[in-house]
Each structure stands twice: as C-alpha cells, then as structure tokens.
C-alpha cells in the first residue's frame, strides 16, 4: 500500500435479489431471473489527487459501484479500505465520522436538489453534519458558492429559479463544502447543453487543481471521460474488463469490448466514417450473466475456453490491466 493510496476496493461483489426480475437477453428478448449480479468482483485503487474514469454501458454496474464506494450500500462481499484502514463493516455512527471525505455529484441537476430548500440550506446540509457553529457554516457556504461562480445574493433562491448549469454548480458547491478527498461524479454533464457542459467541465478541472481532490468520473461518454481522467476502467456486466492510462487504453485497447466500444463512438468528423469493430447483439442484463468470460457471446474472437473459464487479469506495462484470454496486440 503506497502512501498515496486513498481508497482500495478488494473483490467487491454486490448482488441484488429480485425474484422474477425481468431482463433483456443478448438477443434483446425479455426473460426472467432471480439475482442481479450488479457488481461481480471488482478490484480498484484510487490514489490521492488523481482522476479515474469509469466507462460502461447500461447494466455494467457502474452506478452500483459508485454507491458502494460511497458506502450508501454495503457490498455483498469484499473489502473496502480508506487510507489503509478497513471500513467495510463500520457502524452507521463510525461511518458518519469519515463521510465528509466522500461526496457525490449526480447526473440530473433537476432532481439532485431538494426543490423545497433554498440554495443556502442545500449547501449547508453536509456541513451541518460535522460543524455545529452556524456562523462557520454560513461563511463556508458563501465561500464555496463564489468559488463555483455564483453570486452570493442568489443564496436565498430556490432551485427552480436557476438554470440547469447553475443548479449543477450548486451541486458542485454542495459536494465541495466539506473539502472532501474524493468526489464521485456520475454523468455530471449528460443532462446539460453542449455549451453548459464545457463550462462545468472547466469548473471541475479548476476545482480539482485547487482542492487536490480525487475524482471518480463515471460516464458513458468516452471523450468526456478521457478529457477529465488520468486512468480509465472499462466495466462490462459487473466486472472491470480493462484498466489503464487513458491515452494508452484508448489508442491501444487490449480488450475486444473496449475496442468495440471505442469504435462505436461517433466521431465529430464526417471523413472518419470507418467500419466499426463488429459487435453482435444487445447489451445484456446482469440478471443472467454468461458463463466464463461474460463478453464471449458477443465477441468475434471467442473460443471454447472463453465460454468456460473466466479470464484472470493480466498486467502489461504502465499498469495496463486486461481480463481477456486473448488480449489484442497492437
């Protein structure tokens, strides 16, 4: 464990039981199952003052992973370490003491703020859990409100009096109020217009520099994730299939799913209308994951081995890790 390690996830598993859960198989048809294997064995290290991007499509488990990191739900099995100390089984009260270190920014600026609370109260809320002095809270609220580019005379307004971009700024202010060490961002700009998105991304970068906070940036938009992160982890059906330095992974993906994902992304360049790496079928649901390597039913390079055995993670240079029996060599 290095001194810069902030958070460590060891073989985190999270299942949800859902009797008669309905899901769509790879052929896109409705079937039923009973357990949702949302997160199925994830190892992850997050360092201080770093940026990790997590990409994946629907059903990959990234949201469940985020909630597990934030200790909103307890893992079914596996361990969680914060600054070297295990926190998996802390009580509600003990957890409350370290909560100021973790914050989250949600996707929808319209539903992540209580419509009946004023901006001031919204930002003060996480502070009120740790500080009792009302004056100190007020000071801090004003300070962080200005840092996110809003003017303090708007502190008494309600969320519906702000635009989408401004609401997201309030959400960012709320997340930063307690000076957290880790902030999880779950699609923070997906619901915003292109021009607003750029403003918010710039703000997030500025803040990260100033606060030296670690980001875990979750998104389905790979370009945005690339822009904001140092490392990327690609999730598929509850597992991390590939993880590595951002540019390395995007230019030379080693996992067929990563390659397919990247080539599926439309590029804003009409001349680059190349053929995409073939990907068959629909994004399956975690209720009934395939045997062996989860990606095998859709992988053009799958063999008998792939359908029988789960591929163990292999490490390449620069901490580039892949879970595949036949990693692509480019």
């Amino acid at each position: 464990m290095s001194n810069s390690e902030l958070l460590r996830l060891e073989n985190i598993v999270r299942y949800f039981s859902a009797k008669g859960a309905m899901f769509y198989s790879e052929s896109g048809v409705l079937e039923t199952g009973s357990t949702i294997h949302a997160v199925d064995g994830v190892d992850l290290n997050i360092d201080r003052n770093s940026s990790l991007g997590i990409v994946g499509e629907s059903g990959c488990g990234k949201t469940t992973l985020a909630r597990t990191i934030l200790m909103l739900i307890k893992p079914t099995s596996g361990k969680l370490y914060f600054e070297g100390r295990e926190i998996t089984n802390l009580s509600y009260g003990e957890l409350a003491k370290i909560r100021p270190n973790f914050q989250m920014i949600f996707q929808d600026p319209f539903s992540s703020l209580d419509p009946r609370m004023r901006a001031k109260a919204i930002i003060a809320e996480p502070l009120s859990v740790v500080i009792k002095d009302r004056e100190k809270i007020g000071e801090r609220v004003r300070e962080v409100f200005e840092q996110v580019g809003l003017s303090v005379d708007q502190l008494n307004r309600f969320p519906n009096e702000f635009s989408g971009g401004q609401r997201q700024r309030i959400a960012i202010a709320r997340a930063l109020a307690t000076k957290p060490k880790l902030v999880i961002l779950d699609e923070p700009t997906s619901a915003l217009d292109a021009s607003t998105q750029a403003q918010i991304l710039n703000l997030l970068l500025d803040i990260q520099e100033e606060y030296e906070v670690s980001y875990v940036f979750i998104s389905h938009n790979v370009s945005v994730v690339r822009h904001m992160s140092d490392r990327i982890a690609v999730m598929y059906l509850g597992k991390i299939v590939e993880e590595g330095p951002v540019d390395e992974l995007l230019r030379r993906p080693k996992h067929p799913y990563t390659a397919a994902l990247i080539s599926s992304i439309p590029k804003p360049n009409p001349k680059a209308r190349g053929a995409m790496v073939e990907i068959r079928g629909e994004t399956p649901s975690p209720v009934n994951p395939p045997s062996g390597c989860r990606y095998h039913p859709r992988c053009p390079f799958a063999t008998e081995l792939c359908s029988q055995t789960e591929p163990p993670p292999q490490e390449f240079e620069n901490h580039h890790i892949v879970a595949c029996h036949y990693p692509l060599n480019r």
Partner: protein
Amino acid sequence: MTDHIIQVNELSVVFETLQGRYSALDKVDLAINKSEVVGLVGESGCGKSTLALAIMGLLPRPPAKVLSGCIMFNGTNLLTYTEKEMEKVRGTGISMIFQEPLTSLNPLFTIGDQLSETIRIKMQRQNEHDGRDEKKVRAEVVEWLKRVDLADPESAMERYPHEWSGGMRQRVMIAMALAAKPSLMLADEPTSALDVTTQAQILTLVKSLVREVKASVLFISHDLAVVAQIADRVAVMYAGMVMEEAPVNEIFENPLHPYTQSLMGAFPKETGVRKARLETIPGSVPNLARIPPGCPFHPRCKFVKDQCSTARPGLRETSPGHKVACVMYTQ
C-alpha cells in the same frame, strides 16, 4: 430546385401559454432533396423538434400557432391540410421515428400486428391487392423484420413491444417507418436513449436501409458527432432560427457562424490536450419567451457588432451550398 422533396419556407411558429408567448420557430427555411440525409443540430429548445412536428402536422394547435410560412410537399402546402388529409400523407408520404420507442409503440398489439397495419395501408394506397391478401402482408412483415436484423422474425412477430429491449424496439420503429416506403422520414433523436454500441448498430442500419428504400431523412440530434456520421448536409439551429447550413464535410472543416464554431469547440476532442480548458460560450441558451432582439445569439457572441442587436440576419449563401445567417458574411 425541382429536386426538393420538401421545402419549408419562412415558417414561424409560436406557443401561447399562461407564462407567455414562446417563439419556437422564426422564419425557418429548409429544403430537403431526394435521397438526401439532412442533419438538424441544435441544443435543447432550439426548435428542431417543433419543426419536425410541424411537418408531420402533429403540432398541438392551440397552444401552437403558425404565424407565417408554408411547408411544400408534393406541390401542396401541408399547413393547409385537414387532419384527414394529413393522415393520408403520413406513412407513405412522410413517416417519423422518435427517441423513446416504448411510448410510440402500442403496448397492446404485437409488433407483427403493428407492422402489418403499416404495410396494409401502403398496399391500399398503391392499389396492391387492397392489402387483403394476408399471406402477402405477412411475408412482407417477415421480410422487413429480417432487414432490420431482428432474429427469428417468425416468432418475433408474436411478441409485444415491452418484451423487447430499447435497441430492438427502435429497429421495429425503423421498420414501421420505412415499410410504407415514404419519400421522407423524420427521425427525432432516435439514438439518444441508446447505449453507444447499440447506437452504432442503429446508425449503420438506418444508413443502409434508407439507401435501399431511396427515402430522404431529416435526422434531428443534439449530438454533432452522430450527425457527422450520418448526414449529407447539416443545418444548425439556435433559438428557433437556422444559423448555418452546409454539406457535412464543409461545415465541419469550415464552420462559419460563431455559434457553430463555439459548438464544435465545446466538445472535448479525442485528439485534443487532456484537461485543457474547453472553449465556452458565455451565458446560456435563451428562454424562448424572451429571445434577444436582432440576432438571438448576439448576447453571447464574441464577434458581436452594433447592428447585431437590431437587425435579424437572414440566411445568405456564401459559397455553393453553404448558407450562413450572420452579418460578418453578408457585407
């Protein structure tokens, strides 16, 4: 000129509500040619969906009101059509697919039933067997389901919409939209709700099918990259106005309008410098009830001049096929 499938001329639409009058479309000019895919790009609230609904005759009037303009299709102005007349146009003349297929497919009927209905109507209108030959109809349904890559079409026909995933439903929608062999298909953000890998499949499918059926498409999206992949020509809208229009290669290589330029700069580039600050457009998209006078973009434009706040710029051609609505290019 005679190659136009549809021509929208100076169309202005407003919405009269309790909160005020929203100006959704302001003298919009747009033409679509035969076998052409036109991409309509803009942020939320720019009027692109309103335009599509106006063409389909689906605008709720009231509260919508057409102030001026016409929509010429096959020699007649669609705005003058009654609901009955519009019904005849829909399907075989103009069809539409939407963002969320679950709400546009009837949950009580199997997809086979719904597709059959479309095909029967087409047959009736083309006087083919009155559409009463069930075997022929069924054969064509199976044919179409195969074309949109729906596995096992025979049993697929018996399934209901909710039994299918989003991507599959969208394929059914596309089949329904194209089975009637329309001259024009309107697609309103058809891939925005899909995963990126599914989106890629659907885009490829649409491109090939549309060529086969020889239909024109108006592809509406807020995503410039998606439009880059599928369109022949692109129109950029802002606050109810068309700001720029050009062939797809041209508009990406040489965007002229300040808004178009800013829009392109606002997206993180794949090859750009990571963590570099993105170009931003100050301010935000205007409330349609309070659109700035003159050029609606002028409060946020870095090249703004005095006349921008008083004179509304018209769409002018600066080079063959490339039109811009900005005073910088009309001097």
